[in-house]
């Protein structure tokens, strides 16, 4: 950012105009996601909705939450919960839907 300046607390001063642009982008993406949901695309509806939501989330994290100006250690903290969420969903979905396909061993009395 052109207005970045160093302060005692080493934070970056983001100009209000940048936030305004991001807000407009976020509102446009909201309109887009509502419009996209009116079209029946089958299972692609949820994929599209999640992609748009992730774009919005990225904008919020990068600009509103100053993520763009943070160091690498802080980025580990930002990304870790998403990695853990992926592991959780990945683990559950490779387990639960296949439970009935398990071979059941009869235990002899």
């Amino acid at each position, binding site marked *: 950012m052109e207005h970045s300046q160093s*302060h005692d*607390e*080493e934070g970056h001063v983001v100009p209000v105009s940048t936030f305004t642009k991001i807000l407009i982008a*976020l509102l446009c993406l909201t309109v887009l996601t509502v419009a996209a949901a009116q079209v029946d695309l089958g299972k692609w509806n949820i994929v599209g909705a999640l992609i748009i939501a992730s774009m919005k*989330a990225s904008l919020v*994290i990068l600009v*509103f*939450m100053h993520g763009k100006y943070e160091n690498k250690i*802080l980025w580990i903290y930002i990304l870790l919960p998403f990695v853990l969420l992926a592991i959780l*969903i990945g683990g559950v979905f490779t387990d639960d839907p296949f439970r009935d396909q398990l071979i059941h061993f009869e235990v002899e009395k």
Partner: protein
Amino acid sequence: MSSNAAIVDHNVPPGEPPHIHHMDSKTAYGAAKLGMWLFLATEVLLFAVMFCSFALMRYYHLEEFHDASHHLYLWAGAFNTAVLLFSSYTAAVAVTKAQLGDNKAVVKNFGISILCGFIFLAVKTFEYSGKAHHGMFPFVWNENFYEYKNFLGIYYCMTGLHALHVIIGMVVMYLYGVRPAMNNRFSGKYYTPVELSALYWHLVDLIWIYLFPLLYLVG
């Protein structure tokens, strides 16, 4: 002594960081921010469990989720999304204003965010009462509820927990943003509480960014 003393330390001149004897204010700022992000990570994980249950429930009850999501008020959800995005914007502006030492603007911008929080909760109450009217709300349930029990169960868990976070965020912004700013507490040298409470509010917004399309749009 009132609890005010804990937040507004009158021994520190306005705009100066509080006296922290074991570290300089730059280190204190970095440590506070890292701690806040770690806390936000645990908040994401709290919701992660619910998103995972949502995904699993949707996998097993796809038809029900499709039908049930059409019973939600789409425009109320879309309006609330816009309200939260705007409140997130004013919270972000408040941080910039605090960095520039404009305490009045911090009060104004956080005030707008808190007001947006009230609007969000009012719309949510309207939605819940509409559901209650049709017997699709806990304690007034009838056969309409049982038809969509899986969807409504996860819907009330997720939106209820989110609404709780909205209330907490409003209290945090008032206690650590608005009230100290009224005492001209912040400057380019010291604005940690404004930034951290704004981060919390952005998290509330982030969760809703995912909740809105999942619950209202694709079901």
